């Protein structure tokens, strides 16, 4: 199996490892097993797509890796630190510096301009006032939004908002980009635009990407590996060699 091959060749650059990872919660009487015993390893620099129907647990898994949620049991180790053992404070630091997140619904703060939105993680990181604006402008420039600095999110198109949220995710130079249906609210053309940015981060910056999606075609076009989930369990894990070359050439 290709999975086995991954394990041996990339062992020294292991980035994420989960072991029997579970996230259960009760809803009334019922016990929901959102993530139910997933053991998976991701190497540094991989572009992983988490695929599955809605309710399959892919977002829950992403939240566990993002340190937004804590496992009921099992372990999730990112860059040698066991997230379950981190304090709330340490977990916040982890979210701030190690991972960047993008969401289906962009999740920009509506009362702030793009510049302020992108600058916000720098505030949390206590970066000096003087440096912040320059860094934020640079990040927005990278996603082609230098003309929109003073606009509020609601004044922008969905694609522009998602680009801004990409800029925000990158501002503290994390090793991981965690994307939850990043193109879910976009038409296919702007979706491609966003995906090309994500691929660029993966290839040019060497970021490890984990992307939740329910569109298999999207995964096939961009991801280097596809993990399939159903009912909180891992049902398939395959590498996707084609995408790396054709995706970029196909361009769309």
């Amino acid at each position, binding site marked *: 199996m290709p999975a086995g091959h991954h394990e041996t060749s990339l062992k020294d650059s292991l980035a994420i490892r989960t072991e029997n990872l579970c996230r259960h919660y009760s809803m009334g009487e019922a016990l929901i097993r959102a993530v139910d015993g997933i053991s998976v390893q991701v190497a540094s620099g991989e572009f992983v797509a988490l695929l599955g129907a809605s309710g399959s647990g892919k977002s829950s898994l992403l939240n566990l890796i993002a340190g937004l949620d804590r496992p009921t049991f099992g372990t999730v180790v990112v860059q040698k630190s066991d997230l379950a053992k981190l304090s709330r404070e340490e977990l916040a630091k982890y*979210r701030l*510096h190690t991972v960047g997140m993008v969401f289906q619904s962009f*999740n920009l703060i509506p009362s702030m301009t793009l510049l302020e939105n992108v600058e916000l993680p720098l505030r949390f990181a206590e970066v000096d006032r003087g440096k912040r604006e320059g860094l934020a402008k640079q990040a927005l420039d990278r996603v082609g939004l230098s003309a929109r600095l003073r606009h509020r999110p609601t004044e922008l198109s969905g694609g522009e908002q998602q680009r801004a949220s990409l800029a925000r995710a990158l501002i503290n130079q994390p090793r991981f980009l965690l994307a939850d249906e990043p193109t879910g609210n976009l038409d296919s053309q702007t979706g491609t635009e966003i995906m090309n940015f994500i691929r660029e981060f993966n290839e040019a910056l060497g970021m490890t990407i984990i992307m939740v999606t329910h569109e298999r075609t999207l995964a096939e076009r961009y991801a280097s590996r596809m993990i399939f989930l159903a009912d909180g369990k891992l049902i398939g894990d395959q590498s996707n060699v084609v995408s790396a070359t054709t995706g970029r050439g196909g361009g769309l």
Partner: protein
Amino acid sequence: MKTYDMAELAVRNLRESILRNSLTTVGISVGVASLVAMLSLGIGLQQLAGRRLQKSGLFDTVVVTSRRDLRSFNHDQEENGPAPAESPALNEPARQKIAQLPNVLEAYPDIRFITELRYEDKPYLTMMAGLPFSAKNNDAFDGMQGDFFSSETASEVILQKSFAEQLLGKTPKAGGEDVSVTELAKPLLGKQLTMRYAERTATPAPTPDAPDKDKKDKKDAQPANSAEINNPAGTAYSVISREETLKIVGVCDLDPDSMRGQARARIFLPLKLAQNLHVMQPSDLRDTTNMASGAAAYTTVEVHVKSPTQVQPVEDAIKKMGFNTFSIVDATRSLRQFFAVLDLFLGIFGSLALAVASIGIINTLVMAILERRREIGIMKAIGASDGDVKGLFFAEAGVMGVFGGVVGVALGWTIGRVINLGTNVYLKRQHFPPEQIWFVPWWLVVGAIAFAIVVSLLSGLYPASRAARLDPVQALRYE
């Protein structure tokens, strides 16, 4: 997050729902305003009550009497201290000794006597008192017409308003219009009064050629006893009727009750002059232990102390010398106690409004958490710590407190002014002089703002920790 960034974010967040946050801030302002208005009223009333006493310098005055008079100010003084017979006489050397005590500004005898005055050939009988030259700077003489005494021994007098009215035959009828001092002074200033008084003079001893070295206690002295011959003042005194012409230099609107020392005196002459005249005082007859001396002992010596806080130590020092003392500090203790209680109650009522306002803050912030759930989720997802979120809400409460406090103090100040103005309009209608019944000291301004901030921060405590505890996954799911 750095504190400055936190405050900046807090202000911009508050601006986002400007109406609601303004209303909450107004709530705090009203609370602070009521607190400030109440307390400033309490302080103002206290000052009003104290001003009269303070104006005449009574808070820094100690009244000294001799224990030989057997008239102490309270039972306690009667029982403690040296026996009257062994206690010192309150005479000139004693006065000088008192005047040299630390923190004593001056010590002067209280001289007053009943005398007959003739003005335009009509006799008037009244109480006259010696006024020390230092009284010139006394606030009590602020509204005086004419001038103060030209020198310490000038044959001049200052009239009290009611006596001036009497001289002019203008005694006001009850409820009638008050005659102004200016009006009274005009015909009187520069006019002459003739004072008839009894001078006390030493009578030379009947046998001056038989000196005796025996310095026995004065109490043994009898007019015929040659034992007292070494007393240069003589062994007896006689009373001679004299006249003195005095010029009216001033008329003052002094409340006869406001100056304890000169109480009920209606005409004043320079103290030094009064001393030089050796006017027979009513107390002289009672003063049997000193009667042999021409230089009479003083009934009372008034001591002015540098500041009211020095009154107690000076009083103690004088008591140690063997005299009885009295100061207004004792008498006002209960008054001050009353005002402390009044201030406390006014403060509690004022704080009630602030308590209501603090509930407003809690409500606003809890609402804000519900509204901004998603925003909190986002902030946490991109790396905000619990402390950051907590601090942000805390800062929002604090900023509302700062604004509420500042606006509230301004509002309270305005309310106080309006009340004061209204009261004065009323007082004027009732023919009373205007009064400052309201006063805002600087510490109240600072204290009220600080109090508003503290109350706001306390109110923000619960909402802030609630916001910090919010689960980001649930918060992000919330639409």
